[in-house]
Structure formats: structure tokens, C-alpha cells
């Protein structure tokens, strides 16, 4: 039994490894007519390229098996790298085998034939004629076409109408509603209220309205303290600062990113003043002048929130922002934020 199996195995291996020799017609037999004309021309064998291709295919199979092994073993160190390496090499070596096949093993022909004709005038004419003659029973063609167009247009509008459910398209009040109103306390990300005494110079704080949704675009503030003598607020923002502490919407008026850079003057000669900077497109705002743009693409100043300090030292809003929060739209300058 074992011997028989071994013989079978040897036979199979021999069968696979045997080289195909050109078959000769047995002597004495008549050749069956003239051979059919070849479509693909004959080429000479390239045994070394053939062996290379077979080797590459087998290596590819080995790598694919290795991928499965790595996948099953799991939790190897460098698991992702090993998976990528094994699968990538499997694909690449099979690719290499195919390219060797294409370049060296299959018969490479360089054929030529005609491009398709530029046009088919006969068929063009027939199509036009068919369409024209098909309408021969219509007497009010223009009216009919108008009817078709009207029906098509109306149907299209009807089919598109439910898209209006996507969002509030006309009523844009939600763009200017803010959670800030007079007396609301400023809290940090964890909900702890800020005292004026917590706010130091040369750094910035992110504050939210107490109890509001933090993710709302009108919630976050950037709060900084400036030496009161450096403040140069315009008349409309007079009284917005509390003991040198100023608060602005944290959302950049250019494209809506959060302002998370505070440039305190490290190089006082080149950059004389502290500035709030958005890291997306580097719009730069001057907190001392009420958030005016001093560099970069933003087209509006940062909305400023009036502050006051209550009897126990907590920071509270003294009103709403002086302008809409976030990026501009066409009537942004005509609107005032409300709570």
C-alpha cells in the first residue's frame, strides 16, 4: 500500500515535470491534409524564462500561504507588517511571473489594422429619417414638444421635492442662535466654572457656557488676559473686557476651524503683539483691538463676548456676541446673534 502510494507520487511528479516535446507524426501514416493556417505565429521555446515564471508562481503561492499562517497565528509582534509583507510579496511575485510570461513566453505579435471609419453617413441618415418619419402623424408638433417638456420638468421637480427634508434651507436663524446670554457662567471642558483669578497672562483658555452643548459652534470661547493698558478696544466694544480679560468665539471666521494657537511675542521686534491664530489657514486676530484681522484670509473680525466678574469672582457673560459666529455667508453682516 505504502509502496504503491510512493510509486503514484513519483509518477505524478514525473508527469508534472516532464517537458512537452514537439509531437512527430508516426511513420507510415499520411499527414491529414495541409495544416490549418496559424492565427498566432509560432515561436521558439524559452525554457529558462519558463522555469523563472514557474518559480515565481510557486514563490507567490508560498507567500500567500504565509499570509494565511500569519493571519491565523495572530498577535505576532509586527503583525500588520508581516501581513502586508506576505500578501504584498505574493501579489508581486505572481505579477512578476505574469510579466515574464507576457514578455518572454507568449508569442509577441506586433499587428496592424485599420482604425474604425470616421463616420457612417448612411446610418446617420437612416437614423434621422426614422425619427422624423415616426412623428408623421403628429399635427401640432411644437405644442406636443412643449407638453413633453412641461411634463418632464414638472415630474423632475416633483421627484426632487422630497430632498427639501434634508435640512432647513431657507430659515437660517439656527446659524445665529447662540447659547450665550447675560449672566451665563464660563466653565471649562469639565464644567468647572472659571474665576477671573484663574486666567493668567501669556496663555489662553477654552471656555463654554455653563450647561450647554459643547459641540455647538457658538459655544466655545477663547479667553486671554492682557495687561489693561495694552487694550485698545474700539468704541462698540467698550466695556467688553473685565479686568483685562477678553473673550472671543473660538471658531475662526474664515473657515470654521478652532483657534488653538496663541502667539505671545517671542520675537517682539518682528511680532510686537500677542495674537490669536487659527492653525488651518493662519488667520491671525488681535485680541487687544477686539479681534480684528491682522494677517491671513479671514474676512471678518472674531466675534467678541462681553464679560463681567460676579461678586464671588466668577466670569460671566454680560450679553451675546457682537456678531455671528463662524464662517461667513451672504447675509452674515446683516444679522445679530441671539440666544
Amino acid at each position: 500500500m505504502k509502496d504503491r502510494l510512493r510509486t503514484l507520487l513519483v509518477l505524478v511528479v514525473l508527469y508534472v515535470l516532464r517537458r512537452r516535446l514537439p509531437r512527430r507524426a508516426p511513420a507510415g501514416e499520411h499527414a491529414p491534409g495541409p495544416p490549418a493556417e496559424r492565427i498566432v505565429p509560432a515561436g521558439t521555446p524559452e525554457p529558462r524564462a519558463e522555469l523563472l515564471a514557474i518559480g515565481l508562481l510557486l514563490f507567490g503561492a508560498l507567500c500567500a500561504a504565509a499570509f494565511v499562517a500569519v493571519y491565523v497565528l495572530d498577535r505576532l509582534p509586527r503583525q500588520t507588517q508581516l501581513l502586508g509583507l506576505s500578501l504584498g510579496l505574493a501579489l508581486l511575485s505572481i505579477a512578476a511571473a505574469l510579466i515574464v510570461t507576457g514578455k518572454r513566453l507568449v508569442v509577441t505579435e506586433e499587428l496592424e489594422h485599420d482604425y474604425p471609419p470616421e463616420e457612417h453617413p448612411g446610418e446617420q441618415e437612416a437614423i434621422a429619417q426614422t425619427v422624423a418619419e415616426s412623428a408623421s402623424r403628429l399635427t401640432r408638433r411644437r405644442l406636443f414638444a412643449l407638453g413633453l417638456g412641461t411634463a418632464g420638468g414638472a415630474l423632475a421637480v416633483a421627484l426632487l421635492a422630497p430632498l427639501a427634508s434634508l435640512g432647513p434651507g431657507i430659515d437660517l436663524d439656527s446659524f445665529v442662535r447662540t447659547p450665550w446670554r447675560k449672566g451665563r457662567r464660563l466653565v471649562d471642558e469639565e464644567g468647572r466654572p472659571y474665576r477671573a483669578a484663574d486666567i493668567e497672562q501669556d496663555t489662553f483658555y477654552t471656555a463654554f457656557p455653563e450647561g450647554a452643548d459643547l459641540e455647538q459652534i457658538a459655544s466655545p470661547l477663547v479667553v486671554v488676559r492682557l495687561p489693561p493698558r495694552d487694550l485698545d478696544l474700539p468704541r462698540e466694544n467698550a466695556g467688553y473686557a473685565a479686568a483685562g480679560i477678553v473673550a472671543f468665539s473660538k471658531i475662526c471666521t474664515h473657515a470654521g476651524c478652532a483657534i488653538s494657537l496663541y502667539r505671545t511675542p517671542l520675537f517682539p521686534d518682528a511680532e510686537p503683539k500677542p495674537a490669536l491664530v487659527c492653525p488651518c489657514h493662519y488667520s491671525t486676530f488681535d485680541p487687544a483691538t477686539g479681534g480684528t484681522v491682522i494677517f491671513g484670509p479671514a474676512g471678518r473680525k472674531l466675534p467678541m463676548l462681553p464679560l463681567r466678574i460676579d461678586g464671588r469672582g466668577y466670569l460671566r457673560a454680560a450679553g451675546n456676541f457682537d456678531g455671528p459666529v463662524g464662517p461667513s455667508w451672504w447675509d452674515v453682516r446683516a444679522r445679530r446673534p441671539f440666544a
Partner: protein
Amino acid sequence: MIRKLVRFLDRRTGTAPFAQKTLRYLFPDHWSFLLGEVALYCFIVLVATGTYLALFYSDSTADVVYHGPYVPLQGQHMTEAYRSVLDISTSVKAGLLIRQTHHWAANVFVAAIVLHLLRIFFTGAYRKPRELTYWLGLTILMVALLEGYLGYSLVDDLLSGMGLAIGNGVALSIPFIGASLGAFIWGGPFPGSSAFFPRMYIGHVFLIPALIAVLLAAHLALVALRHHTQFRQGRETERRIVGVPTFPGQTPRSLGLLLAVAGLLVLLGGLVQINPIWLWGPFHTYSSTNGAQPDWYLGWLIGALRLMPSWDWTIGNYTLVPNPFWGGVLFPLVVFGFLYVWPLLERRFTGDRAFHNLLDRPRDAPVRTAIGFGLLTWVLLVFLAGASDRVFVFFGLSYSTQIWFFRVASFVVPVVVAFVAHRVCLELQAGERVERRRELAIGEARAEARRPLS
């Protein structure tokens, strides 16, 4: 065996004549013709890997607390969407490999399309009768940019959210309709309603891929119907195409290229880290980070947004053009619009209405080459401007100085480059004429020498 199979299929479908013609369809042999194929194969890899990722991704923005294996984020609030991508990256077997391969494939996909477009442009392959093929290809490129943007936005890490915030700002900036459009897409003001992520998701995994597939099918059908263009290398003429047949010559090569592209992308996905989202952390409306860069193919838009000076067009209280419109909408519209109308412009100004199956070399059409180089330089400079914050970090060049440099250079340098390109084309042509005359003279001299003395 093969005869039997062919007979079986032919008797049931009657397609043997068509299949026989297809087998002998000719592919002209030039390396630059492979670029479009590479893009096609990237798309296949994207669909395959993307389908796998979709089996694990969640599009919910519900707030959850992370308790997964990545310690630095444990206990943090995040959306379910972000957590599902973290899980794909840390807990799903082979998940990180597939995710990174998908991301790499997206980058290579767009790169291959852009290189393919440059080949088409500079060789005049878009000329009659192939304008439709060209317009379809341009549309695929535009849609691919949007698809990539949606893809990395769905992850909902910090960089995703910043990108979405910018996208929202750009949408709002469209004159008159911007805010309504933004409210429609997002379902309200940024960051939008809970319906927004499912909308992006269906767009990213169904609507846009289906659109790309349809456009691609039409693109390839047109290529096959009109056959490939070819360079004049030997026997090629406007009427005769010379090339390798689909079978047996082209099939192993194309299959090989498909597997090579897939293999390379998997190697990249396994060995070269891309977008390590666990480092960025979850997005909140109130957070952002310095050094944020989009995937490479949106670099030109961030550059354009950054280059614009503080400039809103207003009439009274009404803002006709909010600032992000210039860089985020108008700039890409101008670039793509120009590319769309270019075949018509060229036809109008050269009066060339002929059929073209033979390609130009760039030097054969100096004006086209000059304009192409000018446009390319313009886009490239704006792209580089988008990286000026990195240049500041690595080389210490003042950011504002760089921006002012690019504001001027992006208008001056393309003109200079166009003139230089034009000159180079003319010189190359002149050089060829000299060479041809020299060869002619040498031939004559030889003939002279061979003539017997009378």
C-alpha cells in the same frame, strides 16, 4: 476542452465573432499608456478594501466612552464612528493592513489619474474624435477628489473634523445660496445633525463609487470604440493602428500590472504608516491642531485658501463673496473649467478640425505645451504655498514672508515657465531639423563618394 467551452458559450450567447474580435483588439505599446490602467487597478483595490472596511465601520456620531486597547485614549469621549475606526485599526485582525492599503490606494488612484491627464494633455490625445473620453476622464478626477475627501472625513478623528469644518466654511461661502446649501448638506449649522454622517457614508460607499464606475465604463467603452491613439514610431499612420493584441500579448501584461499595483499598495499598507488616527484623537468643534495637512490631492486647495488676503466682497451689509470662495471654489473651478474647454479653445485658435489618431510629442505643439506648463506651474506653486507652515517649522523661513512670496510668484512664475517651455519646444524642433539636414548631407556625400569617377 477549450473548443467545447467556446462552443457551449457561443451556442448560448452568439458572441463568438465579438469575442474573436476582442481577442485581437490592438494595444499600442508605450509605457505612458499604463498610467490610466494603474488608476483603474487602484479603483479595483479601493472597492475591494473599502467593502471590507464597510463591514466594520459605524456611521453613528453618538457619544461613547472609549475602553479599547489603545491606552492613551481610554476614558475619552468620542463618536461611535471614530471608535469603530480605532477598533478596525487595533482589534480587527488584518484591519489596519486593509485600512492603510485603502488609504494608500486612494492617494495613488488620484496620482495616477493626474499623471494620466498630463500625458493626455501634452500629447494632444483629447483631440477629435476623443473629446468625450477626455471630458469623462476629467469628471472622474473631480469626483475622485470628492470621494477621497469624504473617505478621510468619515474617520472622524481630529484632522477629519478640521477638514469638515473647512468644507462647511467653503460651502457657506458660495454666493447667495451658500448658507442654504450648507444647511441642506449638514442638516443645520456645523457640525450638523446626526443625519450628516450617514449621508456622507452612503455617498462615499455607494453613490460616488457607483458614479465613478459608470463614468469609468463609459470612458473605457469610448476608448475601445475609437481604439487607442498611438505615437508615430514606425508603421503607424492616422489610418493604421499598430500594436499588441489583447490575447495572448496584452493579457498577461495587464494582469501582471493589476497584481503589481495591488501588491505595491498592500506592501505600502503593511510597511508604511499612513494616517495614524489614534494619534490625532477625537474631533470636537472646539479643538484643532497645528501642522494639519490634507491628503496630497487637496493640497492645492488649502494652499489657495491660505494665499488669499483678507478679502470679502461686500455691498452694504451683504457679503457677495465670502473669502473661502476664492480659494476653495473659484480656483478649482477655473483650473477644471479651463481643462474642460481647452479642446474647444485649441480647435478654435488652430482651426484644426481633423481626426487625430496619431499623438503629438510635446515639442510638436509649442503653444499647447507652454500653456500646459504654465497651468501646471500655477497649480504647483499654490500647492507648495499650502506647505509653507511646514517649511517654517523645518527651515525657519517666516510664514508671512513665504505667503507674500507665493502671492506674487504664483502669477509671475507660470508666465515665465510658459515662455521658457515654448522656447525649449522651438529649439528642440530646430535641433531636429539640423539633425535631419545633417543626415541628409551625410547620405548625399556617401552617394557622391560611391559614384564612379567619369
